[in-house]
């Protein structure tokens, strides 16, 4: 069912932003993976990422080929499937780098905690779009969204992946604030959450407490994440205004940067392209996010509006957390930079997000 109006309404502007960001991402990944001194033939990661982008384009196209309104019906099955995948991680997950995050399916290492972010946005959009009292959602109304968020949150925390778990909560909170909740309910929730903190804290083991303290304040661990932060700051700062030049980053080349092609990719870009390049990237992200919000603004049904806001919030928080982390403004967490960081699951998640935004955008004038 190809409707000519759909093609007419296709969001070419969004596509352009995404293509520009994707190009910056691939360029930077190439620099990050080739800069290592030999023998570190990681160039293969660059080609892998090209493959992921190709798959991403197909996934994106698939995500706008059907009407997003169908997702209202599919939200729960999708959510359940993603939760089952997360459970699979708990049981069969591959252990790497101190946590259990990946499901190994043949040659593919799937990270279900990436996909669950979209699933949560879907179920919350579905629930919130059914409407509330004029005063907003009451505490009783909010119980269900809280449970829908808490289950995957718990499964991600035990991996443990504190960054993604926090991100999931941020997205859910953003959506809840957006749809308006009763003031009474919000006050009650905030106070009870604050009251629970010391209780949970007392239940934690000593090393878990230590890990959270370090997470909140990397200066406490100058030999671990604190060291990464200072090296990242040196990389970004040393780029100065015009940068050291492409493939000329010394911090990058000497492996001072941890996870340079995933979590700290922004530092590589900032070192090589300086303020010029990094401000351009941040502005592009800003345009992408405002674009997403304007799609929400022009959408005429609650489900589409809330869905667009949720997806945009997902992207926005990842950008803010990741770039903030590399500049020492945020705790060191494994949150990838959309369209820039290396990673299959992350690329596919972002592709779905963009595809859904396009979906909502091109159907804004259509009435089924």
């Amino acid at each position, binding site marked *: 069912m190809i409707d000519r109006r759909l093609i007419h309404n296709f969001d070419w502007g969004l596509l352009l932003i995404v293509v520009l960001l994707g190009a910056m991402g691939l360029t930077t990944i190439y620099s990050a993976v080739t800069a290592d001194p030999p023998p570190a033939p990681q160039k293969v990661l660059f080609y892998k990422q090209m493959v992921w982008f190709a798959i991403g384009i197909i996934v994106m196209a698939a995500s706008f080929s059907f009407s997003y309104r169908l997702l209202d019906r599919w939200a729960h099955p999708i959510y359940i499937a993603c939760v089952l995948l997360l459970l699979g991680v708990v049981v069969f997950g591959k252990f790497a780098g101190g946590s259990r995050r990946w499901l190994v399916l043949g040659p593919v290492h799937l990270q279900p905690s990436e996909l669950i972010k979209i699933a949560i946005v879907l179920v919350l959009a579905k629930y919130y779009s059914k409407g509330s009292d004029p005063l907003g959602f009451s505490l009783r109304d909010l119980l269900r969204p809280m449970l829908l968020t808490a289950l995957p949150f718990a499964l991600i925390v035990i991996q443990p992946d504190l960054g993604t778990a926090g991100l999931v909560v941020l997205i859910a909170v953003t959506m809840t604030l957006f749809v308006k909740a009763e003031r009474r309910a919000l006050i009650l929730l905030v106070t009870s959450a604050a009251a629970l903190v010391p209780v949970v804290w007392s239940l934690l083991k000593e090393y878990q407490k230590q890990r959270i303290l370090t997470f909140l304040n990397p200066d406490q661990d100058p030999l671990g994440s604190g060291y990464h932060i200072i*090296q990242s700051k040196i990389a970004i700062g040393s780029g100065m205004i015009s940068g050291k030049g492409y493939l000329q980053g010394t911090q990058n080349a000497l492996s001072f940067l941890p996870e340079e092609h995933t979590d700290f990719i922004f530092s590589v870009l900032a070192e090589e392209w300086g303020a010029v390049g990094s401000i351009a990237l941040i502005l592009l992200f800003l345009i992408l996010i405002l674009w997403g*919000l304007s799609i929400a603004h022009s959408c005429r049904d609650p489900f589409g509006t809330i869905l667009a806001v949720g997806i945009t919030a997902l992207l926005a928080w990842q950008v803010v957390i990741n770039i903030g982390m590399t500049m020492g403004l945020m705790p060191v967490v494994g949150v990838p930079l959309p369209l820039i960081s290396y990673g299959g699951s992350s690329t596919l998640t972002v592709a779905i997000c963009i595809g859904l935004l396009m979906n909502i955008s091109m159907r804004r004038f259509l009435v089924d």
Partner: protein
Amino acid sequence: MERFLKPEEQDGYRPRIIGVMITVLVLFVALLLRLVYLQVVMGEEYYRLSMNNSIRLQTVDSPRGLILDRHGTKLAENRPSFDVNFTPKDAGDPGRVLTELSAHLQSPAEDLLAKVKHSRGLAAFKPVLLKQDIGRDVLAVVEARRVDLPGVSVQVRLRRNYLYGMNASHVIGYLGEVSLEELKSGDHPTLRSGDVIGKFGVERTFDDFLRGEPGGRQVEVNANGQVMRVLRTVSARPGRNVVLTVDRELQLRAEELLDGVAGAAVAVDPTNGHVLALASSPAFNQNTFVSGIASDAWESLISHPFRPLENKAIQGEYPPGSTFKIVTALAGLEEKAIDETTVFDCGGFLNYAGRDYRCWKKEGHGRVDIRRALAESCDVFFYRTGQRLGVDRLAWYAKAFGLGARTGIGLDQESRGLIPSSAWKKKRFGVAWQEGETLSVSIGQGYNLTTPLQMALLAAAVGNGGIRHRPLIMQRVETIEGEIVFQAEPQETGRLPISPRNLKMVQEGIWAAVNGERGTARRVHLPDIEIAGKTGTSQVIGRKDSGDDHIPPHLRPHAWFVCYAPAAAPKLAVSVVVENGEHGSSAAGPIAREMVKTYLRKVPDARRLAGDGVKVVVGGNG
């Protein structure tokens, strides 16, 4: 059915989208301001830092806690070791430097180059470990040539040193590099690959206490790798000292007595469960494990016929032989299968189901009661007692005494032993229990298996009036300043389900075994200390009806002896097993006796030791 926005809802959402946009703008302005601060305001400074690549991490080892005996004598400590490191980036011409260095270290330049090449995946500014623990002579040469050897540095690290090489090696255990599985388990969040962790014994069990927290420094270095300023320091926290319950003197004595045989000796304090000695023979030298054991040394340890790596005191499972008669006697009395007046006639064998079950004394003991039966270890008496009890009632008592289950000492790979029952046999072999097997089990043969530690604890409980204690190997944990971090309290795990009267009868029986005229353990008798004990000889192969004295050594029976002393108010309970030692009275008993002497007299009697057979002596009865 789709629901579309009513005007009032649009009015609700649209302003809020504007609100979200404003929030996003604020966040992004914060990012941009931070970026400008880093790249424009601080740019020069960060550029300088990045050009020197001058920030290094140096780790500072935290000393591992000491292991001390109950009197505070050091068993394991740390000593300095000088390790040669090489930082490729600071070397200028790595090939020349390594060639020169190889002459001093007496290792081929190719090996050194290979080590450096191998770790090139790491950044060039990270030091590569070339050689560990160079002697002081080599150290002097390397330090003197410092100027000609850029990039070479000597690091002082702490290495484990076991003060009594071969002694208490099974208790203390050893260290090794942390394995991938241990890292993956998530139990050691602070450990990184290459770190050292306790692998066996106390080093492993109390690793969390013993291991300190490493510290480190973030430093800025100049072009020659010299530290210009220290940016940040995290001080190391030394490990805690672990004070064991082991008495070093008694432990060393037990090991000396076991020298040359395969076996184990355990001594516990019956009043609180403190393990005073836990010896297993042959031992190994823990110091060979410190810098990674050589593969041929490892090979010879694991192929040794006497299994030196096994802690026989807790891992070794042996049929308890006649020492089990203590259990049969207590069970029989308590179940009223026998009593003080019960007398069985021993004619040297018991015929059951057409088969003769022999007593060790061919000519027979004649008419024996419970006390004589224990003192002279009459098999027929206990065959009859066992017949009246049945295997399941016997098994119930054995389990209630702590046999067939781990004692919970906390050292790794502790064995359970085995106490057979009719249900067990049905499950294990699918066939019904045979009454004849009850006879074997009653004298500690057959399927029964116990560890030396289990039997020492049983002797302790019999001696102290029936109180069972959890064995303690560690008394307390202290900081290096001596502040007590953890104190292990004696823990009662239960009581023997035996009336005082019946217990007393058995105590008198095993007292007579050592002190009576015809006791099987007369050799163990001491003039000044009253010992109560029981010998045991456990068959390696089934006891044949026709006696044959020419059995090859590895099929000879194991010798057992369990005892406590002083008999009236025991301060020490001992169990000894000598593999293939044949007779409890001659091979195991004297070892236990010497341990009692060492601990209770504190002055070893050299004359007696030399005059009496402490080593394996064939002959006597068990």
